[in-house]
């Protein structure tokens, strides 16, 4: 297990380095000088030159890359060109909306998908199974941001149960949770549909295994066989999908934030693009990619822990 973990740690480091290089290279080729953008069109050439110097834009590529990476390692993401305050601080503030949103959505996804998937698998072919399959087919096809708009129309505009958007801040946790409820449901619905289908088919696969028949022959009821043996073995594909889904939820949060006017990472990155705030775009994108890579790493380790057979393969 330790050897496997070390090996995965090595490829994790390489992935992170390559990802940071790719993002840095992309941002480098962007046309437009941030210094002249910040100072406006009437700026004097020497003022622009001074600001370029101050921002460190005159240093060589390698120096800038290294200072960006070493800065990030020590928690210093640089200074935003437009906000004139530390990027880490701004991202930290916004993260307190996007991350809880993604996590609540992930929780909802699992809470919906597990019972529904298990129900469909155990009652295979029944009307319950058929309606689950039909509903999840719709859930997968519906664009989540449109579903979000429909919920706003129903719950905010017609029923007035929720506000249509905005975020009151975490000082009032209940109000904050309420503001994140509709966005989280919108994010969770398509993912829950996918996960419920994966759960169903994984469970159907394991339920037809010989060891389940053996369990039944030994006198366990179908229910006991399911909870003690089948479910645990069906978890491998389910875990994989949950890992992948977290990255979709984080990225999807960027879109859903737009529907509900939530001041999270998504709105931050779109503003940063239009204002040529390169260091901000760079940092947010890297942070998201970092999160995805780390989650995949954690999922890989979780597998190896659940299923020792997987440790041998890479």
């Amino acid at each position: 297990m330790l050897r496997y973990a070390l090996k995965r740690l090595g490829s994790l480091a390489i992935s992170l380095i390559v990802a940071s290089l790719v993002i840095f290279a992309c941002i480098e080729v962007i046309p437009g000088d941030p210094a002249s953008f910040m100072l406006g069109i009437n700026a004097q050439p020497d003022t622009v030159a001074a600001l370029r110097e101050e921002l460190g834009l005159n240093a060589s590529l390698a120096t800038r890359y290294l200072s960006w990476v070493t800065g990030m390692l020590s928690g210093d993401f640089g200074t935003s060109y437009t906000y004139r305050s530390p990027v880490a601080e701004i991202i930290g503030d916004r993260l307190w909306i996007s991350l809880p949103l993604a996590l609540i959505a992930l929780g909802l996804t699992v809470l919906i998908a597990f019972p529904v998937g298990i129900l469909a698998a155990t009652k295979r072919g029944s009307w319950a199974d058929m309606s689950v399959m039909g509903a999840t087919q719709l859930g997968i096809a519906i664009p989540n941001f449109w579903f979000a708009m429909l919920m706003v129309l129903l719950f905010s505009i017609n029923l007035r149960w929720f506000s249509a958007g905005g975020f009151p801040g975490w000082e009032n946790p209940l109000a904050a949770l309420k503001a994140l409820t509709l966005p989280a449901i919108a994010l969770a619905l398509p993912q829950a549909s996918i996960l419920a289908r994966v759960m169903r088919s994984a469970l159907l696969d394991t339920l037809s295994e010989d060891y389940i028949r053996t369990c039944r022959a030994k006198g366990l009821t179908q229910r006991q066989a399911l909870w003690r043996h089948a479910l645990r073995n069906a978890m491998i594909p389910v875990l994989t999908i949950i890992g992948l889904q977290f990255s979709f939820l984080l990225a999807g949060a960027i879109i859903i934030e737009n529907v509900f006017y939530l001041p999270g990472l998504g709105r931050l990155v779109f503003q940063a693009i239009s204002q040529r705030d390169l260091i901000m775009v760079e940092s947010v994108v890297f942070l998201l990619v970092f999160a995805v890579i780390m989650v995949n790493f954690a999922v890989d380790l979780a597998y190896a822990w659940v299923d020792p057979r997987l440790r041998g393969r890479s």
Partner: protein
Amino acid sequence: MRNLTFGLILTTIFAIGALVSFAWTPYDVTVLEIANKLKPPTAAHWFGTDHFGRDIFSMIMVGARTSIAVAIVAVVIGMGLGVPLGLAAAARKGSLLDEVIMRGNDLIFAFPSLLIAILITAIFGPSAVNAIIAIGIFNIPVFARLTRGAALSLWTRDYVLAARVAGKGATRISVEHILPNVANLLIVQGTIQFSLGILAEAALSYVGLGAQPPTPSWGRMLADAQTLIALAPHVALFPGFAILLTVLGLNLAGDGLRDVLDPKLRVLR
């Protein structure tokens, strides 16, 4: 079989709508008629009009063009690059080439297509072409992995051994024996990526990273409708249903195709 039929019917309706829109639409989508704005559905305007008085039915027809074109080209990019990479990786299993291709795939997987789109837009500015590239790049590892996985099991077959004994090289075997046998699998996956592409294009256009005005696109129509939803819900309903039904149609067609081609797929998976 029922899935396949229903899926194909839905998909065909939208494909025909998109094709017809090149020659004819009920109204011109570039003409603004402010006096006629936000009209609910009537006999003259089946789906009503938007905030500029444009006919929503016509816009959905033209929007289908954008969605379908973006998604198809993205699938072609994904297949065109991913399949050869997957074939090459399988032919040289365990080699440095295989390792580089697979790790490259992992890396692209770490960038959700939306992040790729954000990076590309930050560099080149928003446009439909950039949306295609972003979705296409994301499709590459999907096809590369699928092809490699399926090809690996085929390389152990006797007919491949026979071809090697007959003196065929790895490239010729890949093209003549492996590719035809993974084609079914690729068609099914292509349908699924096609539907994902339509969803991704809609999402990108919705946040302003996709097709730019005046090109109508379903995602942009929804973005415009968002502030009007209390006033004129129909503006938000129809483009959403268009996306939902197209994606549903493609998914059902994909599932149906998989069932039809199943005996072979079961061996490969």
